[in-house]
């Protein structure tokens, strides 16, 4: 499994500095405050508008829709910088990472024309409707159904664990457009774009263990979805959904969710001139460096249209364990009293990291599921 070595060009390096300057300015102005796990738990539509104003949402998409046609690597750099700074990018996250590429690959011309410019302008956010109350890791068991009616589909059922549905306008929803067949679970699934403000949609929060609003249940009671909102081919929802996963699994958000804490740890150790502690911290940096190599390599292969199922699953499973490990190692090196409200940044990042860490190895494919995917892949080779 050889991945390309990516050397950033001068232009790319300049772009990184541009993004960094933008973030530092807004940090200084207090537009946002650095937070661990900000890509999923830091939803701030106003900040997303600022990002859009820079041309940084949908930046790889065709200019026909308002995109800048920049490379995957540019987008990679952008994402890294946002995560390293702990910026609140959750509102536009799914639309930018998943929905746009999905529509570019499978969407109709009308869908692209309608949605992509709105997404790019930071005016249209998406949720992801995959899991259901009883499906968990077994996605093929979804039961939400869409029945054909005149001019569209009537959707009934429920989705759960939808992040930030309360801030989103639409949701790409995996539904059964043909009856459930125990023998062929993967068949008859389709992806619909469902308007979250349509009649019959109820969104109820599932408060996170901190009490914060983050996940939601989304219920559908005879929700009408026009034919024009079917994504790709009817019945092909499973395969289309799988194609999204590589984008979802190998990005810097599987490595850097707790980077603000790691950075703060090093600041504290430097203050204390604790070279033994810094030597341990350098192990964490070595892990981060090695994961970045892999993750950037996958991004490059994706850019070239290559197959990355296994390395992407590896980035996810190893990277999220790394993210999870940072608070546990940090607290061995620097004493902390973790507290979400603390003035002291180290204590605050510790609290954010500890409380969010359990989700890292669950969301987007549990480590257990990923082990199976990787093992089957290597055995088949």
């Amino acid at each position, binding site marked *: 499994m050889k991945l390309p070595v990516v050397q950033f060009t001068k232009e790319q390096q300049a772009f990184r500095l541009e993004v960094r300057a933008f973030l530092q300015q807004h940090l200084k102005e207090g537009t946002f405050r650095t937070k661990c796990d900000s890509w999923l738990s830091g939803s701030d539509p106003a900040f997303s508008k600022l990002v859009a104003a820079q041309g940084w949402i949908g930046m790889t998409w065709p200019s026909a829709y308002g995109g800048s046609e920049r490379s995957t690597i540019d987008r990679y750099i952008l994402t890294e910088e946002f995560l390293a700074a702990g910026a609140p990018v959750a509102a536009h996250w799914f639309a930018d990472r998943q929905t746009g590429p999905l529509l570019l690959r499978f969407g109709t011309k009308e869908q692209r024309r309608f949605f992509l410019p709105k997404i790019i302008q930071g005016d249209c956010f998406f949720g992801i409707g995959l*899991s259901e109350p*009883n499906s*968990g*890791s*077994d996605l093929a068991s979804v039961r939400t159904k869409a029945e054909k009616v005149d001019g569209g589909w009537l959707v009934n059922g429920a989705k*759960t*664990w939808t992040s930030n549905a309360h801030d989103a306008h639409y949701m790409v929803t995996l539904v059964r457009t043909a009856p459930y067949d125990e023998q062929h679970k993967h068949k008859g699934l389709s992806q619909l774009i469902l308007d979250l403000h349509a009649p019959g949609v109820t969104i109820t929060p*599932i*408060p*996170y*263990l*901190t*009490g914060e609003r983050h*996940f939601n249940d989304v219920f559908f009671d005879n929700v009408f979805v026009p034919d024009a909102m079917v994504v790709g081919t009817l019945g092909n929802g499973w395969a289309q959904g799988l194609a999204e996963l590589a984008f979802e699994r190998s990005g810097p958000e599987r490595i850097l969710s707790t980077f603000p804490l790691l950075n703060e740890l090093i600041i504290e150790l430097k203050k204390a001139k604790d070279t033994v502690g810094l030597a341990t911290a350098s192990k964490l940096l070595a892990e981060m460096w090695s994961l970045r190599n892999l993750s950037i390599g996958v991004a490059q292969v994706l850019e070239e249209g290559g197959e990355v199922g296994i390395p992407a699953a590896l980035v996810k499973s190893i990277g999220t364990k790394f993210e*999870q490990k940072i608070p*546990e190692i940090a*607290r*061995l090196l620097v*004493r*902390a*009293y*973790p*507290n*979400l*409200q603390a003035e002291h940044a180290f204590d605050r990042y510790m*609290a954010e990291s*500890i*409380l969010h*860490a*359990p*989700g890292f*190895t*669950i*969301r987007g494919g*549990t*480590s*257990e599921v990923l*082990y199976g995917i990787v093992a089957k892949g290597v055995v088949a080779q």
Partner: protein
Amino acid sequence: MSEMLEIVSDVFEKMCKDFVTKETVDLLEEEKWATALWQQLEDNELLKVAVAEQHGGANGDIADLLALYQLTGYYAVPAPVLEHTLANFIIELVGLTPFSSITTILLNEQQTLTLTNGRLDGTIHHVPWARTAQQLVTFAKENDSTKLVAVDLIQAEMTYATNLAAEPRDTVSFEQAEIIAQIEVNELQFQKLIKYATAAKLSSIAGALDKAFQLTVRYSKEREQFGRPIHRFQLVQQHLAILAGEAAIATAAIENMAGSLVDETERFEVAFASIRLDEASKTVATAAHQVHAAIGVTYEHSLQHYTRRLWAWRDEGFTAHYWQEQLAADLLQVEDVWAWMTTQ
């Protein structure tokens, strides 16, 4: 455990079951607490279990208290049961008179309060249940000596705060506060007091991690994936085995520690238990959440009450960090480590 305490334990556990539901624990988030439970405990004299007979108590010992603290941890009791009973146990131990109104205690590594001519000054952070208690028992510095003092909290300026588990951990400031009682503690007494306080915390931790383990076993039987209960999958079995191991290790550690304290043979048991339970807290919280998957990180599910306590408690009071440093210093003096560990 004495026969007397076996009964007390049973009654206490029954009250926890009756008066501490998920909703009771949730009350903390609204700055309320389990007052009904408290009333019951008071009415049944359970708050005086370890108070001397001459002060109206049942004359229990530290092992009796630690057994109760495993239960307060197991049920995430949202009331200052540990603090009140430990405070009274400790002040009796140094020859002072216990309190009947709610009393809290904080023995901290960093001593930030100073005593001058019987007046207390300074700020102390993370005081458990300060907002609820009438008295605080804590350390104060007077010149080069360490005093154990009791002070009425009515004289304090207070800022409410909580730990990761939403338990009250208030900031308390004194300015020339009059103290109720004081006594100097020498190094030997100091060690004894902080070992008791650490042991109390560790017992709660052991209770909470046992609960997280039990909840996970239960969930693994109820939850189905791919058509089977999840405990049938090898990777879930691995998590369950790891949890069972940590729970067994923690229980044995706590009991050996308690035994050594009550026999007054304690040498390194508190330190070892502290270090090992720090590790266990991490392992248990991680594995329990991984098995529970998404449901476990929701506010609705009760797992979080226990894992948040594990994450909070491990960094409070005298931590594994502290005890590791103590042991490192001890080891420098130890001739033969095997003999040291195995020979009294």
